[in-house]
């Protein structure tokens, strides 16, 4: 665990400081700042990748940095950096009839929900800020915090589009949490632990031991989990809370500048978290696909990150391939298709482990 390692390293370094609580505080703050940087860099890179992927899928070139005046790097590589600077310097507008306190609070609630979930994400054998006993359950629980921020943002804006967006989002996220959670139960049944590192340990020894290939039910569970979390992160084809053609911008219609970028940062951070859970829970986490090759500690970070990035790429692929679902179709898929299948899945995994395990 990184905090403990950092703490013991710090206390060996500075034997002069008597009070260990300051050292503990430092050992907690350093990885948290690092995680914040990971989130920020992730958002900047992913926005660029998203625009490029979208462009290539539609046979365009995407941002090329050929603006008037400023030049945003070769192939538009600095485009998102320029956009971030623009957002930071934009005027901060709060609508007159909005509920000011909740309007300001909402982006922070969403952001905190994404940030405290990422604390339990393992990036390597020793690279995890906090390896909780209830790791995967903790991430599920913290993921449910963001929905409050979305509803509050929708309500406090005092705008009908925002309110519709917030309500749709609440219905959608609360519903899709259930199939996602039931698919996670399949992982827990196979591994017998809730700890993220424990789940990854179970899958050591190459691709054949990954949970996704453990049995056919686990494969279906992975598909259900992945589709459900796309709905939970409000991405197309499930982006009805912010459907541009119907609701202007959904729950963040009234937000601009810095506050709006907080929503964006949290959306990409949420994508990172749910893809990390999918990578750790089904795709072997930081283990190499071939046992014994490139399996050292540094390579662990590489494998974990490449699995996460691959899953995020699939999310983007979905976004530019499928049309948006209607509200009733969305609920039908969740309650009438995913829920029964995931319940059968749990039963199936139980029977499978009884016979073959």
């Amino acid at each position, binding site marked *: 665990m990184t905090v403990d390692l950092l703490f013991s390293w710090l206390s060996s370094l500075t034997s002069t400081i008597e009070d260990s609580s300051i050292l503990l505080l430092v050992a907690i703050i350093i990885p948290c700042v690092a995680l914040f940087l990971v989130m920020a860099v992730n958002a900047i890179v992913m926005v660029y990748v998203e625009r490029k992927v979208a462009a290539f899928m539609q046979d365009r070139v995407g941002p090329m940095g050929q603006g008037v005046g400023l030049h945003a790097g070769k192939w538009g590589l600095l485009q998102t950096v320029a956009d971030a600077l623009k957002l930071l310097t934009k005027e901060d507008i709060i609508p007159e009839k909005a509920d000011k306190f909740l309007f300001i609070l909402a982006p922070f609630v969403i952001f905190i929900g994404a940030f405290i979930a990422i604390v339990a994400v393992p990036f390597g054998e020793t690279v995890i800020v906090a390896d909780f*006993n209830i790791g995967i359950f903790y991430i599920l629980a913290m993921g*449910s915090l963001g929905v409050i921020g979305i509803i509050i943002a929708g309500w406090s804006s005092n705008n009908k589009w925002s309110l519709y967006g917030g*309500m749709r989002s609440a219905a959608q996220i609360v519903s899709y949490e259930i199939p996602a959670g039931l698919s996670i139960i399949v992982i827990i049944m196979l591994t017998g632990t809730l700890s993220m590192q424990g789940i990854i340990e179970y899958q050591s020894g190459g691709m054949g031991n990954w949970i996704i290939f453990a049995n056919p039910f686990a494969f279906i569970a992975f598909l259900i989990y992945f589709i459900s979390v796309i709905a939970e992160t409000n991405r197309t084809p499930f982006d009805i809370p912010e459907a541009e053609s119907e609701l202007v911008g959904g729950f963040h219609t009234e937000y601009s500048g810095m506050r709006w970028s907080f929503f964006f940062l949290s959306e990409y951070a949420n994508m990172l978290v749910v893809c990390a859970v999918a990578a750790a829970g089904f795709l072997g986490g930081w283990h190499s696909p071939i046992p014994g090759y490139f399996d050292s500690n540094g390579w662990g970070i590489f494998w974990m990150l490449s699995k996460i990035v691959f899953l995020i790429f699939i999310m983007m692929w979905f976004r530019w391939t499928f049309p948006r679902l209607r509200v009733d179709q969305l609920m039908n898929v969740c309650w009438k298709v995913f829920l029964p299948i995931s319940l059968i899945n749990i039963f199936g995994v139980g029977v499978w482990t009884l016979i073959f395990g």
Partner: protein
Amino acid sequence: MVEFTFWFVVSLTLISAAIVVLSNQLIYSAMALLFTLFGVAGIYIFLWADFMAGVQILVYIGGILVLIIFGIMLTNRISSVRLSQTNMQQGIGGSVAIWLFLLISLVISKTSWFQVEAVEPVETVSGIGTLLLTKYLLPFEAISLLLLGALIGAALLSRKEN
């Protein structure tokens, strides 16, 4: 450090709980309830009940609080009107509250509490699971049936007649 965190969690819980009761706008009460429930989860962690803390956040914040806010948002009048938090019979209400407080304090002081050694458990989840499927199997199944009945009833009530 630990002591500071504990007092922070406790004061967060108590102050936000006071706001839940005293605020004259329902939506602010609901938002303060978010911090209260979070603080209670923190107290569970201080009691080494990490699984309970997770359940607290998942069920109460992710489920029930969302439904409460949802209800406030959908109810046209409630979200804008300012409700008075004082009532007419303050004397009677206050004396009943003090009497109840004394009664509960008396019960707490008289009860011989089950004492355990203050040792951090290695894992709490497996213990809960084992107990639920052995000693408390019957209550567990009874609650499952009750919830299933509630679910079917809710679906039946919200269904369109045709």
